[in-house]
């Protein structure tokens, strides 16, 4: 069963065509990793899927529902959660308050404050701390926990490792290991190729707003991904795309 389908999606930043005719599907419980250089359109794509950025063409489907015309808050209520690039916590609110806001989707499920604290035990001693005073890793854990509190069907994670030390990134991914295999559909933007290939079952590579590689992770090599990342295959005239 398809949890998320993106069909010929376009998005602009003013005159800049940031996302060009992007299409892919993610099966229920799948883990799709989106990779690409800075400015490839990954964040814009995730935001367009979540409804935070208007699409100028194409469709976004959650299951069978076409949500293209819906605003972000309606899509969140239907089960899409985005952990934005840079975390975007409410800095003057506590960890507790940030997590509780995740319940505004009104969706019922197994995720609650206690389960978030079990998944991210480093948040327990910081529960009443102001979000702006947290370390980078703690902020990332809070942002993910806040998204999970909405009990999403599809979780979009934008650059979890941004601004974090490798050790902290390791800890975040360790905490997410159970989530990655829990059946939640995940779309993850990740710059670290090794880490991306380790967690993904589908890989999509973007270059200049377009999808230049789409493949099951098991069927693609690191070299192929690297070539697609830098557009080397494209320059040679051969586009490696697996539909």
């Amino acid at each position: 069963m398809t949890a998320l389908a993106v069909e010929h999606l376009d998005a602009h930043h003013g005159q800049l065509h940031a996302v060009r005719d992007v299409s892919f599907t993610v099966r229920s419980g799948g883990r799709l990793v989106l990779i690409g250089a800075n400015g490839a359109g990954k964040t814009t794509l995730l935001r367009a899927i979540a409804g935070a950025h208007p699409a100028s063409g194409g469709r976004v489907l959650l299951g069978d529902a076409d949500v293209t015309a819906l605003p972000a808050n309606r899509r969140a209520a239907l089960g899409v959660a985005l952990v934005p690039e840079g975390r975007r916590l409410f800095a003057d609110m506590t960890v507790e308050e940030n997590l509780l806001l995740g319940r505004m989707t009104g969706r019922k499920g197994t995720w609650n404050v206690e389960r978030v604290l079990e998944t991210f035990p480093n948040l327990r001693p910081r529960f009443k701390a102001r979000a702006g005073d947290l370390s980078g890793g703690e902020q990332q854990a809070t942002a993910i926990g806040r998204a999970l509190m909405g009990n999403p069907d599809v979780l979009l994670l934008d650059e979890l490792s941004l601004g974090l030390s490798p050790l902290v990134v390791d800890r975040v991914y360790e905490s997410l290991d159970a989530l990655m295999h829990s059946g939640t559909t995940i779309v993850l933007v990740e710059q670290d190729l090794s880490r991306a290939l380790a967690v993904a079952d589908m890989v999509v590579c973007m270059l200049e707003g377009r999808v230049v590689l789409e493949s099951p992770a098991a069927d693609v090599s690191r070299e192929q991904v690297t070539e697609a990342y830098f557009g080397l295959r494209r320059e040679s005239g051969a586009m490696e795309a697996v539909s």
Partner: protein
Amino acid sequence: MFSVMRIINLAHGSLAVLAAFALFVLADQFGISPFLGLLIVTPAMAVVGWLLQIFILERASRAGRLVPILATFGLSILIDNVLFQQFGANTRSLAPYIGDLAFDSWQITDDIAVGKLAVLTLAAAIAILGAIQLFLNFTQLGRAVRATADDADTAGLLGIDARKINALATAVGMATVTLAGAALGMRATFDAYSGGLQLLFAFEAAVIGGAGSVWGTLFGGIILALGQSVGATIAPQGFLIGGHVAFFLVLFARLTFPGSTLRSFVAGALRGAS
């Protein structure tokens, strides 16, 4: 409205005067006490605020930062002139409709008396601000309001409808404006064009106390009133001048010590004095 939506409402004073006139009509023509009249006018003004946000301010906000200011300025002119058209230039007051409360006082000493209405107004202000603080800090809806004020884009990602939150904030703002209009009408006189002066006082109080601060606005109002009272004791026209002097002193301090809060400024002054 500024705290949540970053909208400067130039119709704030005129809306307070509108509420005062509504209470006056209920008292004068229907014999309804202004206190009972608040039960009618407050929700009515809240609905007006909701509609104002949905149909005017939300659309104005999409056109840039200046348009909402112009829209509320136009609204203030509209309200002032409609009130003038309806009620003329005569001043009105709600004092005749609240019995002895308008002039009763508690005698503290032989020389000092405290007006009951003044104390009631202060108590009401503290209660309302306390209720707003509790709402913002301890309810899910209050957290949603704070989140929307901080980052409406991210709030939307969490399922929060910023349109409804903004409309709620405007409705709450209109409800408090109604209470301000009632206090104005009970303690002083008002006419169709009183809104401008009330707007000026509101701005001065907000700047003194810190824009966006719930309790800062109360503190700013008290400082402003003290300045006005001191000015009035010095000269007959000193009421307004005293308040403006207090405002400019605080503004000068904020410009001279940018980034400082009133709390840090006082703490620093106390450290220097000790």
